[in-house]
């Protein structure tokens, strides 16, 4: 009899302990995934921006005409910029990124949005990407420079600042290439408003138009 009582007390104790652990686990889960919205770092980066847009630190860029432009002044013309990150030697993901941007460029021109929306491809490989390399890239991608331009950092030491302020992680890949989280960043007046995955370019354009008004 005594044995029986003991075991039922133990079972209740165990169930309580299990439930406490389960609830702590659920709390830990929700806390670390932004209430279940983000299971990947990339999703977290996008979801966090939806709540508060982020000011970007001042970065000095250079374009293919060797003009030096501060990132803050990039959208001084009141355009909303759709920004991506690349390096001009890239053969893999940047090509699909390039074609996404080419489609965007075509749509912007077709809809006459070039006064409202600009495209910017910023290199995170300033050591190799000088203005000449940018020029070759602009040719290869058939950029219409009043819509879409390529930029590199003037000061290679600002590379980490660039990557950290946008939340880009670059890892080395075989054949001297890089892999990075490619996405479309909506930038207006030095503030990063939204980030869209590459396959959501139409939506990004729509949001950019909304943001420009």
């Amino acid at each position, binding site marked *: 009899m005594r044995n029986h009582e003991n*075991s039922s*007390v*133990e*079972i209740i*104790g*165990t*169930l*309580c*302990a*299990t439930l406490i*652990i*389960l609830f*702590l*686990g659920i709390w*830990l*889960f929700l806390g*670390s*995934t932004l209430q279940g919205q*983000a*299971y*990947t*770092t*990339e*999703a*977290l980066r996008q979801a966090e921006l939806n709540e508060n847009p982020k000011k970007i630190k001042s970065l000095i860029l250079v374009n293919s005409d060797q003009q030096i432009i501060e990132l803050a002044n990039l959208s001084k013309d009141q355009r909303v910029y759709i920004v991506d990150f690349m390096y001009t030697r890239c053969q893999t993901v940047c090509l699909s990124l390039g074609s996404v941007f080419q489609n965007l460029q075509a749509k912007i021109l077709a809809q006459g949005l070039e006064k409202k929306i600009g495209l910017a491809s910023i290199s995170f490989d300033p050591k190799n990407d000088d203005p000449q390399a940018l020029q070759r890239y602009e040719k290869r991608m058939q950029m219409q420079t009043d819509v879409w331009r390529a930029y590199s950092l003037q000061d290679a030491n600002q590379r980490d600042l660039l990557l950290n302020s946008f939340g880009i*992680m670059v*890892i080395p*890949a075989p054949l001297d290439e890089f*892999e990075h*989280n490619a996405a479309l960043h909506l930038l207006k007046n030095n503030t990063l408003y939204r980030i869209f995955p590459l396959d959501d370019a139409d939506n990004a354009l729509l949001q950019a138009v909304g943001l420009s008004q």
Partner: protein
Amino acid sequence: MIRKLLKSDWQSIGVFFLLCVAVGLSIPPFRFLIEQSMMMQMVIQMPLLFIGGAFLNHFPRAKKITQFVSPFNTFGLTGFMLAQIILIYWMLPISIDRAVVIPIYDIAKVISMIIAGFWVGDALERSPPALQLFFIGYFAAMMIWLGIYFINSDLRLCNVYSLSSQYWTGYCLCFISAAIVTFWSFLVLKK
């Protein structure tokens, strides 16, 4: 169940060595290995920590701890639940990224994986096979699903690892799940 596999002091030295290797992968001279390859982290380091934790059970001091909480751990249910939560947490791509980028998460990973292994090792001795089947079967199914997702996904789920690393990790996770189920069936049938 696992305690029977350990018979001599040499085997305790083996456990100690195993844990040293697993923890060592998180410390600078060898840390680049888990920073570069998802396989090193998910297929080598995490299972080693878990197995090391499971074998820690063998030591008399560990026995005292498990005895002490046994009133709240009937059939090892609490231990299984704790381990399940820890293992699921470290399956999330966001957690894997954090373990590589943020040191405090890496420390938490090492400690919690050893704890998970420890309590599963204990729970295997207390629980009836049906309960074991539930937790192990559920875990294996989840890991196979994750593995297949890793293999088929064109998206890089972890920002710190390459797509090819993710692909091969997917295959290894499926293999590990199959190995766990086989090993467990073997232990049960041997009884």
